[in-house]
């Protein structure tokens, strides 16, 4: 639930984290070298020099994973009706509208069907730049429908997470989406169909504490931040500095919480190969 603050920080240094900005070059977070934007984009936002993984938006993620970058989107029109009439400094519908304009999406996830290594697969990709990838009733409903579709059509499911957690402006309604999605995953589990969870930078809060950690395989990318509580909340609670690398994918791998950390350029091959083992 700390996406607001992080959002602010990012606004102060847009060129270092956001890819689609003006200018032809950017400075890499990993190696501090100047790299050409088009080289970075051609390499799926992985630094060609040091392999630092920049974030990848939902559309690019689907293009990366699905054969020829082709897919059919489901439930693309679903948008929230503001269950709490939430107003803080700005009415919630205004925030949603600006996120919709900025991303061209109605909410923070794309649910799609396409072929992955020639196998029909349902793939959901979360969009972090849509209100911090937060999960409200639309994200909850779309992912649940994707799970139900996977069970009905006997297809494998891949969900790529990128989220600060539940969406505060939808209050307890958003909290309940954790239970709703997890309940439908129980049914997918009983149907004997594979669910591969890909946790990308960042995946925290209610998304980690529900579907993202419930994969038959939980996979991440190098350097991704993954956790339940945000690092700031933990620091405030325990009043000490966090160790280096804390809550990064490699830390979770070491503590037994992930099955594998896979570089982005090898991710599709990894998913195709493991689904081949599981589905025969």
């Amino acid at each position, binding site marked *: 639930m700390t996406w607001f603050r992080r959002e602010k920080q990012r606004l102060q240094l847009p060129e270092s984290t956001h890819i689609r900005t003006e200018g032809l070059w950017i400075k890499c977070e990993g190696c501090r070298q100047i790299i050409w934007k088009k080289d970075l984009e051609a390499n799926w936002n992985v630094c060609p020099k040091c392999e630092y993984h920049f974030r990848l938006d939902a559309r690019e993620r689907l293009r990366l994973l699905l054969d020829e970058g082709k897919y059919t989107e489901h439930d693309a029109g679903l948008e929230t009706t503001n269950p709490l009439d939430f107003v803080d400094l700005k009415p919630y519908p205004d925030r949603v509208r600006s996120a919709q304009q900025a991303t061209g999406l109605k909410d923070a996830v794309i649910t799609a069907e396409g072929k992955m290594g020639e196998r029909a697969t349902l793939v959901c990709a979360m969009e972090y730049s849509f209100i911090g990838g937060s999960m409200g009733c639309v994200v909850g409903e779309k992912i649940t429908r994707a799970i139900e579709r996977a069970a009905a059509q006997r297809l494998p499911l891949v969900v790529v997470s990128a989220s600060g957690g539940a969406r*505060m402006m939808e209050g307890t309604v958003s909290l309940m989406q954790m239970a709703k999605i997890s309940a439908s995953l129980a049914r997918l589990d009983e149907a004997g169909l594979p669910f591969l969870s890909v946790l990308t930078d960042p995946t925290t809060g209610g998304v980690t504490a529900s579907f993202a*950690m419930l994969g038959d395989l939980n996979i991440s990318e190098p350097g991704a931040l993954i956790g339940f509580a945000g690092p700031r*909340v933990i620091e405030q609670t325990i009043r000490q500095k966090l160790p280096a690398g804390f809550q990064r994918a490699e830390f979770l791998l070491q503590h037994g919480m992930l099955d594998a950390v896979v570089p982005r350029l090898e991710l599709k091959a990894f998913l195709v190969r493991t689904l081949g083992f599981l589905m025969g």
Partner: protein
Amino acid sequence: MTFDPDKARKELEGIEREIDALGNNSSDRATEERIEQLSEQVRQLRADLATHPSAWYRVQLARHPQRPHTLDYVQHLFQDFTEIHGDRGFGDDPALVAGLARFHGQPVVVVGHQKGHDTQQKLRRNFGMPKPEGYRKALRVMKLGAKFHRPIISFVDTPGAYPGIDSEERGQAEAIARNLREMARLPAPIVVLITGEGGSGGALAIAVGDRILMLENAVYSVISPEGCASITWRDSAKAEQAAEALKITAYDLQSLGIIDQVIAEPLGGAHADPPKMAQLLDPILEKSLYELQQMPVPELLERRYQKFRLMGQCFRDGTG
């Protein structure tokens, strides 16, 4: 004219009874209109009750150090409570208690967050904030109950799951997630009682069930009002405003379809008279358990699935 919550509560109960009676009869046009009219009154009364007293006042009551906690309810409601410790993997978490007990003679399983009333207890119980081993213990004991067809009663009262280095190392998120998935399919009736603070994922991790009952001054939220205030208004002093905006009171959540029933508290709040609070809870718990135990397990599980499946139908199709 000042708002009288007691009067409003009685009025609400009367109207709800009337709707139930009408709903059971054959529905003609006139009956439907009458139900619609009464439902509007229910919405209005719940909205009034949600703000009298204010959400922020209820937050204070929900956190009151003398408010009864799980082990207090255990003492007043159950017999032969036998505590069961440990997650069989790492350790025993005092912030979450679990055990076997009898309720009106019937064997049941009890789990619940445990806070403390004084400083020493609070520290020992980590202020009711469980670590992964707490959630894993809860699941282990609930599974034990289901294996022997014992109903499960879960008491929810936590500021949240503990945010610490050790919690993260041992997979706080995984522990909560697993509980959500497994509770959705546990083949035994589950009654959830939200008795104090329903603090986000740390509360939900033991709050998936067939009946969700909530005490009148309990709160249930995705984030603390202070946390919300510091994020949105950048000022934790705006917590009062945030508490209102987040719709965290029992009446709000009943209107949103998230909880099933609001349970009245003694005058002044549960802390004013814990034995009386337990006495008010007892028949409602008994009735809920009785109803759920009449249901064959497949039907119970289907209804539980649909209950959560339908939460948050707050969207429209904005295509075109």
